């Protein structure tokens, strides 16, 4: 492979620039959910969603979409597909005999083909065999965003707006379908037996003051990612690595800004927005601040590794406990897997 890092990082970094705020992504998810079923196909609905997201003005701050652009005149506009294209694709999919066939009934050849594509495009985040890592474990009873085949195909095709899940950017209809068929074939992995004690892990979480940067179930400060459903979204190995060696894995959307104002005050905080002329941040007191770069004596984005502290000095037992606790965090309803 000619690259060694996940695609979503750069995508997310850009999403943070400009107007997007930590809540920006969430808005998009809601847009997505609020779309009425179109009664044609989900692919068609997804185009609609993309169009809708565009419309929301998010392009302003999010030059690079989570979806990777497909082919374009100008190389960046495929998201802006309109209803015409929708209808046509819908018609094509409906017309194709394969479209009516459930993914679970795909031929072994198609599933094998899908596995090969999965390993190239998906395994970096979802792990080989879909066991999860940086992205969710896919070997579950129900994939909460894609209980229906069409929804799964849509996600493979276009990603999930407002999350780190990108669209594929380069697969044709058959390849998308075969990847989806492979994901459907993954089955259910047995619940991972974790060595730690989640109760002790919770104590450690509180003692270490993790909540000064993370929210769990509504408590804490949102400087870093909300961990309320991190047990669903990440694999245990990824969490272990995040705690021990954050620079390797921590999402670069969370960047520390260090600046010095004209009157020699130093301000440090987490960047929430940036454009060519200004920067917005949440400072150490949790206040929203905005600065013009030209007014500053100094402005720097600290290297990515400085964002999350490393906790490499945890003992193995402590680390096990903490990871075990984090893996119990499965969202408000306890995880509708």
């Amino acid at each position, binding site marked *: 492979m000619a690259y060694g890092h996940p695609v979503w990082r750069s995508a997310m970094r850009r999403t943070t620039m400009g107007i997007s705020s930590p809540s920006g992504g969430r808005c998009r998810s809601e847009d997505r959910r609020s779309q009425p079923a179109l009664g044609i196909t989900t692919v068609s609905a997804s185009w609609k969603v993309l169009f809708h997201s565009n419309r929301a003005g998010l392009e302003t701050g999010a*030059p690079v979409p989570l979806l990777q652009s497909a*082919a374009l005149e100008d190389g960046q506009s495929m998201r802006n597909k309109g209803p015409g294209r929708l209808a046509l694709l819908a018609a094509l999919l409906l017309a194709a005999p394969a479209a009516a066939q459930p993914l679970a009934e795909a031929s072994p050849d198609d599933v094998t083909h899908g596995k090969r594509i999965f390993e190239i495009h998906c395994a970096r985040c979802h792990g080989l065999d879909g066991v999860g890592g940086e992205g969710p474990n896919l070997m579950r009873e129900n994939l909460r965003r894609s209980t229906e085949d069409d929804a799964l195909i849509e996600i493979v095709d276009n990603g999930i707006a407002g999350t780190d899940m990108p669209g594929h950017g*380069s697969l044709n209809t058959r390849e998308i379908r075969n990847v989806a068929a492979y994901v459907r074939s993954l089955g259910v992995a047995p619940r991972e037996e974790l060595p730690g004690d989640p109760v002790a892990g919770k104590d450690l979480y509180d003692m270490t003051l993790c909540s000064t940067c993370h929210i769990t179930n509504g408590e804490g400060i949102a400087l870093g990612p909300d961990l309320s459903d991190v047990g669903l979204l990440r694999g245990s190995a990824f969490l272990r690595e995040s705690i021990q060696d954050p620079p390797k894995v921590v999402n670069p959307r969370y960047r520390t800004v260090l600046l010095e104002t004209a009157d020699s005050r130093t301000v440090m905080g987490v960047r929430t927005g940036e454009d060519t002329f200004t920067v917005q941040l949440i400072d150490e007191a949790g206040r929203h601040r905005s600065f013009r770069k030209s007014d500053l004596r100094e402005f720097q984005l600290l290297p990515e590794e400085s964002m999350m502290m490393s906790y490499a000095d945890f003992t193995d037992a402590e680390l096990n406990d903490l990871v075990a606790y984090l893996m119990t965090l499965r969202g408000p309803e306890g995880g509708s897997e």
Partner: protein
Amino acid sequence: MTTRRLVGAAILFALTAAPALGQVSYSRLVNADDEPEVWLTYSGNYKSERFSRLDQINKDNVSRLRPAWIYQTGTVGRVEVTPLVADGVMYIAEPPSTIAALDAHTGRRLWRYDPIVPDETLNIGFPRTNRGIAILGDTLFFGTLDARLIALDRTQGDVRWVTQIADNAVGYAVTAAPLAVDGKVIVGISGGEAGVRGFLDAYDAETGELAWRWWSVPAEGEPGNDTWGGDSWKTGGGATWLTGSYDPDLGLVYWPIGNPAPDWNGDSRPGDNLYTDSLVALDVNTGEMQWYFQYTPHDVHDWDANQIPVLVDAEWEGATRKLVIHANRNAFYYVLDRETGQFLRATQYATQTWAERIDENGRPVRVPNMEPSEEGTLVWPSLAGSTNWYSPAYDPDRMSLFVPTREMSSIYFKSEAEYEPGTPFLGGGERRPDADETYGAVRALDALTGELKWEFRQLTPAVSGVLATAGGVVVSGTQEGNLFALDADTGEALWDFYVGGGVRAAPMSFALEGTQYISVAAGQSIFTFAVAPDADAGGND
């Protein structure tokens, strides 16, 4: 004078003068530089300089640039138009293909014409938008997403004629501004990503009848067809989706040509794939090609040549020469002789990893193994290129070309490509690598050498066109929503304003009653700025 004669004169005036605006004659278009208070063509003049000869807005007062008015289209797509201004009226296009006339003093709408583009209209590879209008006489000309060319009376917005120029069902569309010349309207098409076969058309401005068609991909038996394998020419792309330039003295139209299809999988089209990724010079009367120059033979990275070619007359090695300059998507800046197409110079102006150099004939010497692959191939620049359709601006006083620049790489993927009419015909795609430290810039290039004079760095890769002015300020924007003005000599930022929407169009300038304005489309609106009075100067500014 008797009462009867007075009444007669009044009626005559009412019948002739009152409803009609002035004529925008062909000679006004040719001599656009003499009339800097109007903006009559997409790029400001036939040379495509996008240079305003107004100098009221200058380095000293540009910091007081303030909104004069804002027009909200109320539409949902991207507004990417360059407005035209003539006789106090601004003409704009709104997504997808609607034309509106605004009072240029206030932004209040005078009329709007919606050609009603059906919902099922295809737009494969480009947004549902319209980037500009042409004007000739008292008529406006524009294309629609469903590939019609329409002529409107510019006073009322009434339809004069409609010509269906191609079939949208296979992917053809019009997003680019037509170019009006003497008695003709030249219009290009979009649709390369659907595997259409590209062409450039000229229509009679009075009747809408086809005057000539030039195919950008030669048919069997025609010169250049042997640069395609098998039947690949039939679906070869080569769209003509950006407005070209015109030299009235030479009678030549200069038009940039898009990439070959399928984009990232070139297996089915062995050869150079003429005339994709080229600049062509066509006889304005017949459409016959006089010369071509291909920037990127056998392109597999989607590096259309659809960037604005700028016509420059300059001293070249001791003699005055007619040149055409062009900052290409492939990261090189080119100088050609526009009479002959002779290659004179290429200079790299942005990061690239695909070519070792450009040889003495202008042909790239390629770095091996830079083609898209199933596993992905990291290449600079990204598929959107080192620049794109966003107009550059040429300052003839400084002999600087200001280029909206993108510093960005892609991982290019290759996959199967099967042609089905009216669907994407791509054969791959791109992803952005994590380590990719992307940014944008306005770069000022020496027009003769292509060497960098200065750059103004932007947070993200450029998507905005550039305007240069005789006041020594250069105006552009960012996709983050900034509009800004730079010192044309140094690149220093002199002014900026947050418009709250990505600037995905190019600014232009005009003047009314002695006041210079700068207008730009951003987000879903048109913003128009003028210099506010200087409070400190006691209103004497």
